[in-house]
């Protein structure tokens, strides 16, 4: 009875029901991110050690030193004619082509502007020199860093959670709001004694509530499939994610505050989301961009959500250490909600 009479509860229920009754929406929030994690995780996360592939020319194949390289488990050696080998090198299909010239010297064909080529050449040359009898003059020891928590898949999962937060907030709020406006339903609602604040709060609230199971589902899947650890406390992960969800819901509300057609909201969404997709460090660190654009990248909400998520999930930093990212999010929240409520088009 009380739920029947609570406008806020009824508005949340309407949103929740509309959402749960669209199977395709469920796929995009649960299925799609899972496929991303699995696909990218498998692509960048083989259990066996990576073997360095390179090509040896037919002429060099019988050379005794090259024979030793072919027996080395660290290498994946292919033998072919020099012309065919160089063609593959130009197409970036192999980092290095090894050959032997007329005087018996070992030749390396590679592109010095390509970091992979330079690195591969150094590793192969080292093996050649050792095979020929060179000894190390300085003692060294290898420390492996492919333990859970520092692999690419570990880096990727918080990035995908951030991307999902942004997509769910902007599409979930923005698209639905404009859909209601196009249907004349916003106007119909304000023709009743409904409080406008209840409506907006329910819109944001139901989206944020959906995000919690969504995120833990993704974290659980990543843990079970790839052993991605959660170093920080669940509470701090939840707090960062909720801050992100609320922020992106506000931005979604702002983007949708005036739009009158589905076409215009779709365009606006892309305008807002594409810079963050590209720059905010979902798939690789945002710090790789030049210094000149860093101030711009660092104020993007997605950059800070992902930074904070990586810090609490992978490093286990406490919430207190996330003051800067959370502060940026708070600014975005204040800005987007204040503006959205001021300019929102109800009729």
């Amino acid at each position: 009875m009380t739920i029947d009479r609570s406008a806020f509860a009824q508005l949340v229920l309407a949103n929740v029901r509309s959402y749960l009754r669209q199977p395709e929406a469920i796929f995009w929030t649960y299925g799609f991110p899972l496929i991303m994690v699995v696909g990218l995780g498998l692509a960048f996360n083989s259990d066996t050690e990576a073997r360095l592939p390179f090509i040896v020319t037919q002429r060099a194949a019988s050379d005794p030193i090259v024979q030793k390289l072919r027996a080395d488990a660290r290498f994946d050696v292919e033998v072919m004619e020099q012309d065919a080998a160089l063609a593959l090198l130009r197409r970036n299909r192999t980092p290095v082509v090894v050959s032997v010239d007329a005087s018996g010297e070992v030749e390396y064909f590679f592109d010095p502007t390509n970091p992979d080529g330079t690195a591969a050449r150094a590793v192969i040359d080292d093996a050649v020199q050792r095979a020929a009898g060179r000894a190390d003059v300085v003692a060294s020891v290898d420390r492996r860093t492919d333990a859970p928590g520092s692999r690419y898949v570990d880096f990727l999962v918080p990035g995908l959670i951030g991307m999902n937060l942004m997509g769910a907030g902007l599409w979930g709020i923005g698209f639905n709001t404009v859909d209601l406006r196009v249907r004349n339903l916003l106007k119909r609602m304000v023709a009743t004694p409904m409080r406008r604040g209840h409506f907006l709060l329910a819109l944001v609230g139901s989206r944020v509530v959906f995000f919690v199971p969504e995120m833990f589902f993704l974290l659980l899947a990543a843990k079970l499939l790839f052993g991605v650890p959660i170093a920080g406390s669940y509470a701090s992960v939840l707090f960062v994610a909720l801050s992100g969800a609320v922020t992106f819901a506000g931005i979604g509300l702002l983007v949708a505050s005036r739009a009158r057609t589905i076409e215009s909201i779709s365009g606006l969404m892309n305008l807002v989301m594409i810079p963050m997709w590209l720059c905010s460090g979902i798939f690789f660190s945002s710090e790789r961009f030049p210094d000149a654009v860093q101030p711009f990248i660092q104020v993007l909400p997605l950059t800070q959500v992902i930074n904070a998520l990586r810090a609490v999930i992978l490093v286990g930093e406490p919430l207190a250490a996330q003051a800067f990212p959370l502060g940026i999010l708070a600014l975005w929240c204040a800005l987007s909600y204040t503006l959205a409520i001021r300019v929102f088009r109800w009729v």
Partner: protein
Amino acid sequence: MAVTCRQLFKRYETGRAAVDAVNGLDLEVRRGECFGLLGPNGAGKTTTVEILEGLIEPTSGDVEVLGMRWGGGRDHELRQKLGITLQETRLRDKLSVRETLRMFRSFYRDGIEPEAAMALVALEEKADAWISKLSGGQRQRVAVACALIGRPELVFLDEPTTGLDPQARRQLWDVVADIRRAGNTILLTTHYMDEAEKLCDRVAVVDHGRVIALGAPRDLISRLGGEHVIEFSLEPMDQRPVDADVFAAVEGVTQSTEESGRFVLTVSEPHRSIPGCLALLSRENLELKSLTTRHVNLEDVFVNLTGRHLRDD
């Protein structure tokens, strides 16, 4: 009075041109009556009711609804007493009829239960059906149920039957007649003259944003001077044009017009005027192609006032 508005103006500035959607409209709706705004598309009916509903601000003019004014700090109070259907609202597809009504019910302090609202519009059987599964007429009845759920004192229905098939229209008319009988005040807009005649106690004929005639449908019709219309067309015997005025001389004909080959005579007693007409035709050597008689309707009133039809289709 349930509604009074005086010298209502609404101007839309669209680039260089300005459009006066409402142009000095006066209106009074009495408590307990069903009042109709009748006019063609674009006459300003919807703009007028949306101003009365507090959804649009007028450019100028004075509006009083249930003794209150919009923007006077009591809007919320006023909304509690109004029930509204907009011209076109697509309710949420994936909610059931009951869920939709329960949501609308939660906005009102006082009201009826969703079950009772469904009974008012004869949709009990569809209580658990999603909106997307309903026909156009059923959706419109859900919209009316949403308007009634807060036990309103005043109900606005904007083009309630536009786009519905004849059977669905009649079902909706029954619903409106029931609301009227229950003692509610209704203000509806329509461009169907039969709808206005059937449902409304009084009608304001609206054209170009102002009221051009006001009164009970019967009164408006009787002002044309006759209760009946004789319509006929002639065989094209020769190219001689026939002036409609020649029929004005026939006994009992109060008005005579011609439009694209169809002659329309307004008469009080067809059985007296038809023989006179036939005699005139045979004298002039003209042959009838068709002849029908019918009652005068509000369409004739509108044509008489404006020279145009309500719907040009």
